[in-house]
């Protein structure tokens, strides 16, 4: 034991062991203060490296998870966009002229044979057909 204990720091740090500093006659061999300090420093260093590595891994993991979440949301948005266009298309097909004509005929409607105009003086004279001002598109 007395032989092995001091060799570890020696191998690692090259610090002189008790062999050079302490006489064998002392009986129990104990690490001197510099060795103890080196071990503590090493431990702190390892702990620091571990902490930095841990933080890096945690951050990378968070970025990855967030990235996946963003990707999933992006995918969901694209799916919804596609669904919306599908629904818009269905509405357009259902409301197309041939579809409306067919439904109107089924309901017993037919083109007006005669149109009577009723003068309404309260309405402004100029009824020039214009674009519906409120309508601003679909997006």
């Amino acid at each position: 034991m007395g032989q092995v204990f001091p060799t570890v720091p020696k191998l690692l740090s090259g610090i002189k062991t008790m062999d050079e500093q302490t006489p064998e006659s002392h009986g129990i061999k104990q690490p001197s203060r510099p060795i103890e300090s080196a071990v503590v420093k090493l431990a702190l260093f390892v702990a620091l490296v571990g902490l930095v590595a841990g933080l890096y891994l945690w951050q990378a993991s968070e970025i990855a998870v967030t990235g996946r979440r963003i990707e999933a949301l992006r995918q969901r948005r694209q799916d919804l966009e596609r669904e919306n266009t599908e629904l818009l298309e269905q509405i357009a097909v259902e409301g197309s002229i041939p579809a409306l004509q067919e439904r109107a005929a089924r309901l017993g409607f037919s083109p007006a044979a005669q149109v009577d105009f009723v003068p309404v003086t309260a309405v402004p004279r100029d009824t020039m057909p214009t674009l519906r001002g409120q309508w601003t598109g679909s997006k």
Partner: protein
Amino acid sequence: MGERTRRRLYVLCGALVIVVAVIIGQLVRLQVVEGAQWEDEGNKIHTYTLTLTAQRGRIWDRNGNLLADNIARYQVTADPGPVNINKAVDQLAPLLNIPPNEMRAKLAGAHRQVLLATKLPMATGDAVRKLDLWAVYATPYWQRSYPEHQLLSHVLGFVNAEGQGYYGVEGQYDSMLRGREETLQENRDAYAQPSPFDPARTDEPRSGVDLVLTIDRTMQALTEAELARALSETGAKSGTIIAMDPRTGAILAIASLPTFDPNNYTETPTSRFVNPAVSAPYEPGSTFKVLTMAAALQEGRVTPNTVYNDTAWIEVGGQVIRNWDRKGHGPSTMIDLLANSLNVGAATLATQMGGQTFYRYVQAFGIGRPTGIDVQGEASGSLRMPGDLDWHESDLATNSFGQGLSTTPLQLISAVAAVANDGIQMRPYVVAQKVDGSGQVLTAKPIPLDRVISAQAARTLTGMLEQAVLRENALAHVPGYRIAGKTGTAQIPMPGGYDDPWTIASFVGYGPVSDPRLIILVKLDRPTSSPYGGQTASPVFARLAARMFVLMGVPSDEARASR
């Protein structure tokens, strides 16, 4: 520590140093010396170039009805290397409706990615995605769709599989409609999943601009139905109808038959894609007399009651010009000239004005140059002018009644619309609004091109055209409305002469006369029931105008007078 142990430790340390040195050496070689080469190799494997296509802008009619849309479709591909063929065939074949043997053969014999199916509906594509099969990819894409099918197809045009717009509005506004696509390099992992660290994914494609047309879907449907009925009743081979607001130049409807379904453009002969209303010049015949008379009135050469002696023929530049009925009508007023559509009278007016004056007005009305309408492929027609090598003196006479020159239907209606609009010609247009992704709206303003004749001359001519319709064209009457108009019966040119006995029968009319809100041109090619515009095109105008006045909310003359 003994000497032996110490030596062993030195050996161990030396060995470790060598190993570490080798590793470091290799790292330097791979990362530094050959770094660029290996980076390229890696990129080839893990970097995917993605083109994110923007959703093409939609097209709406003036009332917000959808005319052109995008629908999501899927294509399914598979990597024959890693794919589990048995599993893929078992699960995909029934979904994609492909015979299992056929799919197995496709996958087994291929080395590169195999396209298994395309144009799949969304439900099928989603089902394939949910299977989550290894090395099988369901990729969505946008496909242009026209929910009204054939309706307005000549004005809309179509979009091919690569997203390129052709003809009509799709061609004219292609760059605006297609938006901005994004191309990005994306890093993927061993499972071909996008890397979550990839910053390039922040860019998104920008959707194209939506277009709102001046065209009313219901009016368009009515117009197409009337044209189809006209072709059926008159035996005409083809035809065109244009309806326009003369005050603004806004096109309300454009119909041409035969037509096509832009959803199935690949199954359509390419000749059908051309919009005859703007791209097919023809000799307009007697409808052109409106312009000749406008010039004479503006020049002060005639009044409605000016009388000339209509002989059966007149010789101009060595060519004998005759009336359509080959008869002389004796002393005739200018209203008689229009009512009876007398070629001799028109030629007399043109020769009296002289070539310089006559052609100045013809050009002012926009004949011989495109109107500038915002649809792709507009033709300019042809007009020979004095001084041109191929112009002949007799052209002055034939041009006066619309032969020997050519206009598109749009050019003609645009010119006559100037008369309806108190002499001011407007630029025809079909796109009323552009709406971008943020909801910003750009509204097109009507553009006046020129004052061609005075308001007084225009109103006088309108009155003359009304008289002409009242006296000689009962079939063009619209109950409840005063109408001005002119018939046309034109011979069809062919190399070496005219294609007798075929004609192009037409009628251009507008109303209500007191405040023209609608002008319609009806053109029927080679009718068999009668060659004359007064008998074939006029009734089409009358029926259509009656319906359109109602749709436009234009009350009858009586109702308006009572207000």
